[in-house]
Structure formats: C-alpha cells, structure tokens
C-alpha cells in the first residue's frame, strides 16, 4: 500500500515538474516562433481567406486526395494542349493545399514558362505569364514566411520579363508598363505621398468624416458607394470629372491616392510604403520595369524570413540591381504614354546600392571567392564607362578611384579616367574587325541620336563624343588601308539620324530633326554637290 502511494506521489511530482518546466520552454518557443516568423502573422491579422478556411474545415484529410486528382488532371490537360482549365485547377489546388508552397511555385512557373511558350501570339504569352505571377502573388499571401515563394515570384519578374530570352520580351515589358502606368497615373509617382495616403476605407473615413465637404461630395455623387466609385476609377484611370470638380485639389489627391494604392494592392499585391522603402534603400527605381518588382519581392522575402535568409534572395536582388543598372530606366517618346518604341537605358541611380551589396556579400563565406570578386570588378568597370558616357564624369572619377584602390585591376593605376574609358573601347577596336567596329560605332551613334530623340541631350553629347574618339582611334589604327576605311563621321551620323527619323514616331523624329537640322542640311547639301560634281566629271569625260 505504502509503495503504491509513493509511486503515485512520485508520478504526481514528476508531472508537476514537467508541466512547470513546460511553461518556460513554451515561453521560449513562443519567442522563437515570433522572432523567426515561423507562423503566418499576416494570416492571423487578416484572417484566413474564407475559401481556404472552408476547404480546410469541410474537406479535412480529403483535401490532399482531391488536390492530387486535380494535379493529375492538370497534367493530363496540359499534355493535350488544353490549357483553359489550368488557371482554375491551379487556383483550386492552391486553395486546397495553401501551405504546399513547392506545388504553388511549380504551378506559377509552369504557367509563366511552359504554357506561355506554347502560344504563338505575344498577347497570349503575356496572359499566361501574368497568370503565373498572379498565382505566385496569392501563394505569397498564403505563405508569407516562405522565402522560396518570394524567390520564385521575383525570378519570374527578373528572368522571364526582364531578361531577353523570350521572343515576346519587349511585348511583356511594354504591356506591363502600360498596365502599371494606368494604375500609377504617371511614370514617376510620388511614392512618399502615396505612402502617407489612407490605406483602408476606415482610414479614408477618418480623413473625410461625415461632415467633411469631400465626403458630402461623394455622397452627392453616388450616396457614398466607394466600391462603385472604385470600379469607375479603374475603368477611367482617374476620378470622375463630375466628382473631381466638387473636390479641392488636396482632397482629390487624397482620394486619388487611396484608390490607386488599393488598385495597386489588388492587381500587383504591392504597397507604396514598401516601394518607397525600396527606393530609399536601393536608389530611385523605375517601377514600370520588372527588375524593380523582382527587387521588391526578394526584399520582402528577406524581411519575412529573419534567421533563415535565403542566399537565393540576396543573389536575386544583386542580379536585379545589376540588370537595373544596365537597362533600368524606360525612356518614352511621349511623357507618361507607353509606346512600343520605348528605350531602355542604364539606371545609374542604383550603382551605389549595388556596390554596397556587392561589398556586403563579398564579406560572407558563400560569396568570398575569386569569380565573385571578378564580377564586382567588371561591374565597377561597366559603371565607370556608363557614368562617363551618361554625363556623370565626377561619379565616374569617384568609382575609378575605388577601382584603383579596391581591386586588382591592372590598367586603372597607370591611366587617367579618359584613357581608361577609351581603353575599354579601344580593346574592342584593336581586336575587332571592320564589320564589328562599324557596328559598334553605329550603335554609339544610334544611341546618341535616340537619346536626343528622347530628350536626354547631355547623355547624347557624351555618346557622340565617345563615338568620335572611337572613330578617330580606328582611323588612326587603319590609316591608308582603303578597303577597311570608314565613311566620314558626319555622314555616318546623318545616315543614322535619317534612319531614326524615317522609322520612329513623330515625337522622336521631330525632336531629332530639330536638333540635327543644320547637320542634316549640310549633309544633304554635300551629297547634292557631290552628285553634281560627279555628273559634271562624267559629262567632261564623255568623248
């Protein structure tokens, strides 16, 4: 009997001790879970989407089985080329298995890459890429702490849309820009102002209480039906004129920002506060371009997985920054109007952030090796040449100094900046054949003329100066060899300008014609004189 009591009390004491210990462990675990974002806080805040909650509760363990059957069906249909069900099936699979992020990533990638290339028309391709992006955006909402989903989404932007591997890549960029500028209202919105505007209906009502004249105007317009007003806003890309006239400019802009940020969140799942933060961290990005969105999502992925940073995300930010540096600014023939004649030029504003990130990652174990150092050196060289040719000689000189001190570049210590930049071109000139040099020169002249057409005179002048130096160097290297001599520089320039005037939209052509009028006239005159003199020579030579 005594033994039984002893055993009972021993077990009771043990249980109490374990329970007591559990309190400490539980507390510690709760802290870890919160710090490392191991639960979906966003989910908890917004509530689980109703359809996900319903499918989870109603179907229980059968969810997986149904998702499997839908998955097999999706695969079967894809092989038969019947893609029309794919969006619906993917959506159902995601809702049945919201936490199966690998499946979601596969489906998004499949639509953006595999299904899109099965279509011939660029508009069909774009539709599938967009569907893939939308699915991934939803997957991000369902898995806010999974870095892999952010990476996949960012990758579609950077690789599928930003890169040049797809035949329809220019169409993608143009369509994305067209859709985004409709939401933004203009090419470069004031993100800081957007960020301070009301984000929810409650915040808007706080700003416009019932007795506020703006709310009275909205009530008069449609009895305060904001959903209908939002629908109209999406249709026209602006507030209805009837309502706008009744609002003060400040109130109109508050309402305008509210609708635009709501629209941006709904269609692209991004927040202006975070866009403003990205701009602050990495420099002013052009938010019509996919690389900016890639950076946005990769940064979000890093922010949502502290302690579990995915190297892929850092790499994606770096790749996208380099891409932004190379082609991260969209020049348009007419301000705020997207045209298929857009021109992508370097965004030198991201150079500092890119350098900083390069330096940070070079300190880490995974990246501190020779090939990566060489990449950084190449980036510095490209930056110097680009800054030099885009009228930022001071910044180029600064970077040149850094190249001298921080890298093992052989040329930098023994050259001036001018020599160094020209040397970068001269390497090509010396090693290139007649055709290659001709192409490179034409490229420089073409960019120079285009930059004039798009209104960037300084950059155009720098490109022209560089082209002249390359031309002079080439002529010096190949003097006296008639078969490889280039036509006169002015003639090359005029020919390029004429080609642009004939083929580009009037906005660009007119600007270029106005700027180069004198040169073109001179060329025409010279051409006419040549023609007359050769005709006279022929006449004279006739027996």
């Amino acid at each position, binding site marked *: 009997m005594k033994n039984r009591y002893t055993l009972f009390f021993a077990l009771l004491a043990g249980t109490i001790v374990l329970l007591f210990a559990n309190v400490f462990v539980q507390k510690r675990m709760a802290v870890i879970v919160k710090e490392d974002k191991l639960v979906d806080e966003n989910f908890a805040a917004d509530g689980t989407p109703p359809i996900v909650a319903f499918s989870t509760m109603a179907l229980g363990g059968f969810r997986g089985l149904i998702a499997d059957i839908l998955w097999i069906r999706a695969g079967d249909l894809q092989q038969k080329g019947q893609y*029309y*069900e*794919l969006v619906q099936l993917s959506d159902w699979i995601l809702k049945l298995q919201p936490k199966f992020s690998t499946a979601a990533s596969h489906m998004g990638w499949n639509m953006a890459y595999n299904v899109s290339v099965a279509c011939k028309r660029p508009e069909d391709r774009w539709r599938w890429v967009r569907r893939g992006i939308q699915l991934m955006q939803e997957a991000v909402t369902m898995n806010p702490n999974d870095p892999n989903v952010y990476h996949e989404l960012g990758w579609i932007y950077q690789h599928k849309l930003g890169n040049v591997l797809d035949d329809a890549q220019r169409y993608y960029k143009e369509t994305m820009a067209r859709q985004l500028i409709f939401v933004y209202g203009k090419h470069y919105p004031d993100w800081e102002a957007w960020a301070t505007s009301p984000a929810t209906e409650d915040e808007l009502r706080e700003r416009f209480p019932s007795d506020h004249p703006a709310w009275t105007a909205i009530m008069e317009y449609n009895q305060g039906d904001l959903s209908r007003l939002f629908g109209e806003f999406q249709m026209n890309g602006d507030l209805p004129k009837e309502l706008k006239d009744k609002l003060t400019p400040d109130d109109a802009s508050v309402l305008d920002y509210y609708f635009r940020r709501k629209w941006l969140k709904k269609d692209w799942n991004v927040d202006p506060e975070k866009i403003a933060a990205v701009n602050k961290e990495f420099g002013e990005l052009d938010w019509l371009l996919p690389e900016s969105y890639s950076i946005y999502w990769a940064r979000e992925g890093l922010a949502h997985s502290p302690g579990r940073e995915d190297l892929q995300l850092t790499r994606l930010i770096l790749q996208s920054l380099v891409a932004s540096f190379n082609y991260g600014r969209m020049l348009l023939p007419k301000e705020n109007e997207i045209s298929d004649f857009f021109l992508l030029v370097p965004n030198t504003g991201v150079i500092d952030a890119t350098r900083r990130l390069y330096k940070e990652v070079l300190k880490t174990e995974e990246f501190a090796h020779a090939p990566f150092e060489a990449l950084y050196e190449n980036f510095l060289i490209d930056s110097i040449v680009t800054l030099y040719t885009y009228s930022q000689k001071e910044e180029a000189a600064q970077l040149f100094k850094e190249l001298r001190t921080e890298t093992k570049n052989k040329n930098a210590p023994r050259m001036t900046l001018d020599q160094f930049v020209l040397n970068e071109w001269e390497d090509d000139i010396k090693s290139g054949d007649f055709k290659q040099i001709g192409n490179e020169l034409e490229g420089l002249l073409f960019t120079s003329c285009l930059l004039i057409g798009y209104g960037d005179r300084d950059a155009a002048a720098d490109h022209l100066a560089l082209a002249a130096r390359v031309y002079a160097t080439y002529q010096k290297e190949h003097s006296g060899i008639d078969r490889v001599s280039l036509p006169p520089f002015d003639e090359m320039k005029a020919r390029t300008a004429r080609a642009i005037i004939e083929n580009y939209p009037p906005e660009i052509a007119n600007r270029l014609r106005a700027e180069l009028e004198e040169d073109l006239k001179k060329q025409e005159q010279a051409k006419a004189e040549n023609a007359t003199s050769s005709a006279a020579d022929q006449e004279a030579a006739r027996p």
Partner: protein
Amino acid sequence: MTAFLAIVKLTCRSAVRSHIFRLLLILLLLSIFLLPFTLLGDGTPKGEVQIFLQYCLGFAGFILCLSSVWLACSEISSDVETAQIHMIVVKPVHRAVILLGKYTGVVVIHLALLLIAAVAVYVFLSFRLSSSNISKEERQMLDEQVLTARALYRPVRPDFNALAQEELTRRIAAAKERGQDVSKYQDAQSRLETFNEIRKELIVTYGLVEEDDSIMWQFEGLPKDLTDDAAVFLRYTIFVNRYYVQDQNSVRGQWFFAANYVRPDDAGGESVVTDLMALPEDDFLTAAQNEMVVPIRNSYFIFDGKAQVGFLNKDTRTAELNFEEGKGPFLLIRKAGFFSNYCRAILTLAIGILSITLLASAVAACMSLPIAVFFTAAYMLLGALANYVVSSLPDIADFQAEVTNTFGYRYGDLLLNLIVPLQDFFVTGHLANGELVSFPFIGMLFVKDFVLRMLPVFLLGAWIYTRRELALVSKRG
C-alpha cells in the same frame, strides 16, 4: 399499367419531399447560376466559354448522377426498411413492376431536371455571348473551335500485320540465303514471338522522322463537298525520340500539304497535278497537343475525299522526332452545329443517368440504404480511378516491364472492363473543344454500358427483389 404509373407518380412525389434531394437540387441551381461567376478561365473569350461548358454542365451532370443514386437507393431500400413496401406488395402488382416503376420515377424526375439544367446553361451561355464585347477575330476563333462540332479524321493506318508478315518472310528468306539456321522460325510459338516483335517495332518506328527527313500521312473519307470558307484544322503532338518522352522542348520543323489541281492536258483531257505547299520553318513544342488551320483552300487540299499532310524534320539538336501512332496528326472538320452537339452531349449525360440509376436500383433492391449508396458510390469511384490508372500509364506496360506498373495497368484495364466509368458519360470536354459527339459513339455507349453492363445487373437485382424475404428486413428494422 395503372399500377406502374401510380408507382412512378408516387416515387416522384416522394422524391420532392426528400431533404437530401432538395439539398442536391440547391447545389444544382448553384452550379448553373453561381458557379460561372467563380470560374477562372485563361482570360480569352474562347477559354471562358470552354470552362463554362466544361464545369457548369459537368457539375450539373455530376450532381444529377449523385442525386439519382441517392434517390434510387432511398426510394427502394427505405420502403423495405420502413415496411411501407407491404402496402404495395399486398396488391396484385408484381415486384419487378414495383422496382421498374420506382426506377422510372427516379429517372423521369432526373431527366426533367437535366433538361431544365441544359436549357438554363444554354440560355445563360447565349446571353453571355450576346452581352460580351468579343472582337471579330476572337468570335471567329470561338465559332470555329468551340461553338461547332468537328469530326476527327485519322490518317490511313498502315496494315502493320501485313508489313510484319512481309518483314518476317524477308528475314527467313535472307537467313536461308546466308545458310543460317532457320529452325527457330519453324516453331509456331517462336515465329509468333518474332512476328509480334517486328510488329511492335514497326508501330514504334512508324512515326519517326530523322533530321532532314520527312513523313507523309494520307487521309481518306473526308467530306467531298466542303466549301473553301470552312476551316480545316490539323491537330498534332510531336515527341522527341522513339520512347514515350514527356519532356517539353522546342523543336524545329516544317509542315507541308499536298495541293491538287485539275488542269487540261496535251491530249485535250484533264489531269490532276499535285504540288506540295510548305509552311515556313517554325518552332514546335514537344509532348504538347497543338492545333492549326490548314492554310490552303479546301478545294485544293481535299481531292476526291482524300488529302495528304507531311512534316519535315529540320531540328539539328535532337536525333529524331516522333509522331506516335494514335496521337495524330488528325484533321478536324466541321460536321454539325453547336446546338446539335450540345443536344448530343445532353443525350450522353441522360444515358449516364439511366445507367447509374439502373445500377443503384439493382443494388438497393437487395441491400440496405447505406450499403446500397456506399456500394454504388464506390463502384463509380473505382470506375473513375481505373480511368486515371490507365490514362497515366498509356504505353508504359509495353516498354517497361516493371511489376507495379504492369499490375496497375492490368488492374485498371480489368476495372474498366467490369465497371462503367462515370466519366464516359461526361463528354463536356468534347463539347468544350468543339469536337463532334457522334451518334455511333452515343449508340455504342448505350449498348456497351446500359444494355450489356447495367441491364443484366438490374435484371439480377430485380430477380433478387422478387425472391427477397421482405418481412425479415422490416422486423430487423
């Protein structure tokens, strides 16, 4: 006859009172009127219409099948379990008539619902089409590829048996000529094995096209009176190499078509001249079904009901391209209008309801309600899974003798032969792809599934029902 009609009437009335039937009815209404607004298509009008047809009609059909199973089981079993059956069997009505009457009642009410659902879906579709802004190009695509009924024409298949026999004879003759031992060909069994191997090899290599080589298919029995404005579609799937490779790659090639002209000849008569018209070289995605419009006038392409299509392999990256036997190319030519095809699809669904109700009635005639519902549902599920097993392992049993694969394939095949797969009656996929649901197909489905499989089961159930001890069941209840 009066008794039979009275049972039918009573069954219909009782059905309307059933709570589960009402629930399924609400689901049916939701599938018609609410589902279309929740569906996500691919963003094109064509895709929207396809998914609308596929899902609305599919869901409606599925709910009606479920409802018919539930109602047939409950009407027949619960009468026995609640002893209500005694009120009828004491009257001069044969038990088979009771069963048939209940079956008819369930079928009548479901066919009426099917008709209502079909009309609602059709009207809804017409309304959506008339109220949406569709470009001329998209409308044409919709009319030619979805809102139509295109018959599928297969190329003339070589006589593989004759070719295999020819090859076998050639091999024997060659062996004899070289003075080799031909005794292995004299044994019937080994001769048959060699013949089968040769035949299989011929089938596998039939659609292979090596680099810079071409292949030509002959189509026969095509409509002779086809006008030039009718679009003829070519459907094809290209694979890489001879084995069943599912990887999707981009390959390069060129389609060409035989164009036939009648020209006066030197002798004063007329002769047919055949030219080849090639499309420009293009990239094609492998292991994915593609479709394109035949780009030449039908009067040149189809001559005397025959046509020829060819493909030139211009891909330098892969050794050989493969047009697997049975996977195209096919020609698709409009045979009827959409309304006619829609009615045929509804007819097929009706046969499905008739068959499933027949099975449920037969099972309910000899089992209790839960067991009857479970049995019928399990039967339907097995049929559906069997199709998946077989479709996911198309030819694998031929190429990879893995035990599990072979077992799965054979098991699925056996199930398909024993069980009526529910999806056989759901031809909404055909309808959504503008493919003709032909009357021979519907007739075959009726004979195979209704007459040959379900009717014997029903007759067996009716026989058991007539012999069943009903009082004992009631006592237990």
